[in-house]
């Protein structure tokens, strides 16, 4: 178990280093950081001085090491556009994005898995056909379009829900939450559904196809031949076996929710990291771009690590085979 986790951790560190390298290259070679910081009237000597001070004349490897060192401490420099430390900007916007992503992820899992199980068990039922048609529409509608349509119906025509912002938020310590006020919850509803819908359809289709696959296996046929009840077969034997692959993909999907939040946040002007990242791209604010990249990669790596550990808990085949030695026929 420990060896497995250590191996995974090393892999994660490797992925983070590769991402850091990309972010570093972007930071140093896309546009000139000095040009971004000073005005046009700055003299060449002053620029050179600043260059020296920032360490931009050091060997690339040294610069990369320094970049990683700073990144580990959460220091990504100053935003070109906001003239404030990038870390502070992210700290302000992190709660909005995490709250949105979490609610969207819960929504997609709690609705998507049961729908997938149902369509897998009754592939020819009329409700399954409706679910499948719905899922195809869900996969085909781009996230931003779902957002616009929801705004059109619920804000423009019906006027029930706000079309932008987080509503009233409450500050608890360093965290701001919209989950405790009615206006906050109302504001969260449409963005969360928009963000979760695409993942929901993916999860549903995945669970369905895994379920169909598992129901065809020999051990399910053998369970049937032993006269086990449908309930025991479907929910005891089949569902547990579908969970193993479903968990892996779900982990990836939840990771991508954070990335898709860029789109949802733009549509709903949700004050999170994604919206800031998009504005950074439009304004070539490289420190924010590279910091965002590293932060998102970090989330991904952590989620994948958790999934791997869960995987390990569910599937006995992955656990160390100490008993195998005395298992001769």
């Amino acid at each position, binding site marked *: 178990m420990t060896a497995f986790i250590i191996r995974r951790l090393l892999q994660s560190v490797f*992925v983070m280093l*590769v*991402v850091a390298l990309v972010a570093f290259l*972007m930071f140093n070679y*896309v*546009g000139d950081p000095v040009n971004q910081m000073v005005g046009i009237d700055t003299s060449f000597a002053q620029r050179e001085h600043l260059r020296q001070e920032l360490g931009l004349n050091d060997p690339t490897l040294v610069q990369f090491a320094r970049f990683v060192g700073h990144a580990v401490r959460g220091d990504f420099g100053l935003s070109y556009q906001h003239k404030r430390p990038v870390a502070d900007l992210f700290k302000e916007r992190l709660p909005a994005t995490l709250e949105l992503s979490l609610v969207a992820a819960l929504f997609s899992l709690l609705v998507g898995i049961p729908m997938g199980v149902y369509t897998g068990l009754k*592939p020819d039922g009329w409700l399954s056909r409706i679910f499948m048609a719905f899922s*195809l*529409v869900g*996969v*085909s*509608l*781009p*996230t*931003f*379009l779902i957002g*616009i*349509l929801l*705004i*059109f119906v619920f*804000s*423009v025509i019906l006027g029930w829900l706000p*079309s932008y912002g987080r509503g009233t938020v409450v500050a608890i310590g360093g965290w701001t939450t919209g989950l405790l006020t009615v206006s906050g919850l109302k504001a969260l509803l449409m963005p969360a559904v928009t963000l979760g819908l695409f993942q929901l359809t993916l999860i549903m289709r995945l669970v369905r*196809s895994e379920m*169909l696959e598992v129901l065809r296996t020999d051990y399910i046929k053998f369970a049937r031949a032993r006269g086990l009840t449908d309930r025991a077969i479907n929910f005891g034997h089949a569902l547990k076996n579908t969970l193993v692959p479903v968990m892996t993909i779900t982990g*990836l999907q939840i*990771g*991508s929710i954070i*990335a*898709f939040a*860029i*789109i949802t946040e*733009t*549509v709903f002007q949700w004050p999170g990291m994604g919206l800031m990242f*998009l504005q950074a*791209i*439009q304004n*070539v604010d*490289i420190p924010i*771009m590279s910091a965002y*990249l590293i932060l*998102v*990669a970090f989330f*991904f790596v952590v989620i*994948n690590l958790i999934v791997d550990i869960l995987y390990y808990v569910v599937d006995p085949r992955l656990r160390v085979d100490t008993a195998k030695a005395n298992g001769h026929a």
Partner: protein
Amino acid sequence: MPRPDTETAAPAAPARHTTNFLHRLADSDIFYSFRHSPVTVAAAIVTLLIIFGAVAAPWIAPQNPFDMASLDLLDAHTPPSWEADGNPKYLLGTDDQGRDLLSAILYGSRISLMVGFFSVLFSMAVGVSLGVVSGYVGGFVDALIMRIAEIQISFPAILIALLIDGVLRTLIPEAKSEQLADTVLIFSIGISGWVQYARTVRSSTLVERGREYVQAARVIGIHPLMIMVRHILPNVMGPVLVIGTIHLAVAIITEATLSFLGVGIPPTQPSLGTLIRIGNDYLFSGEWWITIFPSIALASLVLAVNLLGDWMRDALNPKLR
């Protein structure tokens, strides 16, 4: 004992192979499943209609929406022709510049389809060649390519496309950025999608490489490049086409999303996504048509292509039903 599959895979296929193709297609399971799925037939018709509209836009569109001189700002914000203030000249109304929406949608589909299509081709070219090389050469090259693929696949394609697009835009001088917008998009979307092709092609290549006919070709000293192109490639194209169709839908969505986010096709030559972005600003002032019509066009295009891709995957892989 003669092996039938070795025979058909041989480079010099008999001539009757092609003449019989149509007959065999008509009798095949694929064609059968096509004819017996009304949804798929409808999807194919919708796709063909949109492709026709896009290709023929210069001849069938009432107006050239890219020609700023032909636009009349006085006609801006005209609602669809059946509304009270509608103008029969503009069937689906006009946008904020007085552009005829129907024409803009036809031309916009043209750009969306073009960007989507070339992105897929680009992805395919990169992914298939890396996949074949990876599977055929193996060793360090294989490990390197697959490692990069593994890291890239753990990030959503749209994020990769957004990043590449962002970086490229900063590298390209301001003056040229509008001209090059579609090239930048094709490159970004293309790079974000190669992994799936590479993985599929690599695993089929590994299988094909072990087959007798490839071994035989190696033994008689045919150049590896020749073996890859002549013997392995034709055998891995089936799954590649399926991925390509499904990827086309994804590429169209990605282009629309980037354009909607304001980092894609500029408003001077709007794609469907750009049109939706323009219209989104007017949604609250009651001018719903500027957003809704392009949205419908985009959604039907993607839905139709997705349905075709789904059907194709199921028809070629009956096991998955």
